[in-house]
């Protein structure tokens, strides 16, 4: 003992320095992300069931910034905390999405994807309802200063989505500008059963849409607005999933530009029954996003 604790030889001090360095490094990595508010200026509105955010997880943040910036005019505000790189996506200075740099887990074949965030008032209550209706919790509820509280679930068929109780209220209901998210859809094996799940969690009104394409189409609405759809999983697709749509002025032109920027077109532009063209593109890292033309001269009567 006398040797071990002999202060003149400082046997513990090297170890202490190493321990201090390790602790500081790990603590820095654990610092919470300081995320911007979803609504800026803050809103007093709450729209449970509305898609209010999307996050892309990507193994190459730089490549995706170049792609999406070139395609939609997005700009980016990078947040670096510890070992996390997160870019806030801005459209005309307004935050509309995020991109998280993260390596694909070693040995796993995974596909980068946009994660759909749906507004709730109480994340923990939504968690309980989701579990009781067959969902799986992928990330437990967690609060981020500025952003709010969020969690990630897989619905009973396995489609992944997130819920978010925005600390700054939900964005008002306006028509999306070109370059902004305009629509979201989930593709499921049993759309009607899935609709029952989402209705239970978010309180949606559910509408079946008659169709002659051999698929089932269900519209989910809240506040008298259509919020999302559930469609029959297309042939050759095995994994139920969400897909988000960005409003563009010209789908054909956007698709060509996506290819020029290193992306791929996986659903060629086609005219949907409402007259606008739709296409699905895949970014350089493999994440899918849909683009949609939408005329602002529709006949919707605004709710009072």
């Amino acid at each position, binding site marked *: 003992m006398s040797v071990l604790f002999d202060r003149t030889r400082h046997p513990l001090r090297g170890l202490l320095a190493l321990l201090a360095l390790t602790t500081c490094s790990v603590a820095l990595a654990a610092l919470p992300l300081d995320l911007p508010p979803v609504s800026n200026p803050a809103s007093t509105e709450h729209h449970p069931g509305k898609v209010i955010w999307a996050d892309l997880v990507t193994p190459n943040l730089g490549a995706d910034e170049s792609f999406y910036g070139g395609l939609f005019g997005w700009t980016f505000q990078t947040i670096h905390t510890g070992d996390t790189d997160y870019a806030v996506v801005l459209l005309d200075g307004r935050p509309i999405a995020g991109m998280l740099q993260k390596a694909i887990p070693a040995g796993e074949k995974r596909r980068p994807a946009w994660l759909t965030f749906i507004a709730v008032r109480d994340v923990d209550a939504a968690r309980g309802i989701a579990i009781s209706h067959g969902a799986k919790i992928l990330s437990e509820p967690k609060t981020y200063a500025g952003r709010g509280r969020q969690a990630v679930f897989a619905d009973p068929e396995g489609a992944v989505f997130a819920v978010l109780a925005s600390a700054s209220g939900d964005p008002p209901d306006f028509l999306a500008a070109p370059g902004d998210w305009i629509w979201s859809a989930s593709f499921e094996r049993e759309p009607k059963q899935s609709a029952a799940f989402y209705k239970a969690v978010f309180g949606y009104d559910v509408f079946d849409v008659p169709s002659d394409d051999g698929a089932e189409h269900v519209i989910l609405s809240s506040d008298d607005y259509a919020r999302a759809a559930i469609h029959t999983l297309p042939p050759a697709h095995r994994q139920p999933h969400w897909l988000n749509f960005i409003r563009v002025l010209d789908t054909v032109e956007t698709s060509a530009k996506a290819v020029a920027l290193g992306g791929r077109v996986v659903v060629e532009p086609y005219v949907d029954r409402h007259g606008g063209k739709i296409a699905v593109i895949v970014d350089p890292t493999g994440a899918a996003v849909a683009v949609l033309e939408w005329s602002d001269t*529709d006949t919707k009567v605004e709710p009072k």
Partner: protein
Amino acid sequence: MSVKSLPWEVGVAGLLLLGLVTACVGVVGPGGSDGTVGVGYVGGYYEPYVATYGGWGRGYNVAPPRGGDHGDHGDHGDHGGRGGPPSIPSRPPGHH
């Protein structure tokens, strides 16, 4: 050996170890399975790999409903009798 014989380094080492364990819990945190990105942020998720995505086309209607387009088609869901689905918001930003 008495307590007095312990040097201050032992106490510091104990505190650092405690801090390290606490920080590790913060880093690993929730998630980390099924493709979730559990390091510090719960918003990232890698989907299961698919060799080819897409492939559908004309006739597979996935756009949002237009106001008035569906009202006469009936409703076979749990909203029966109230007509078709509403559309997406149409007001431009800044209009109330």
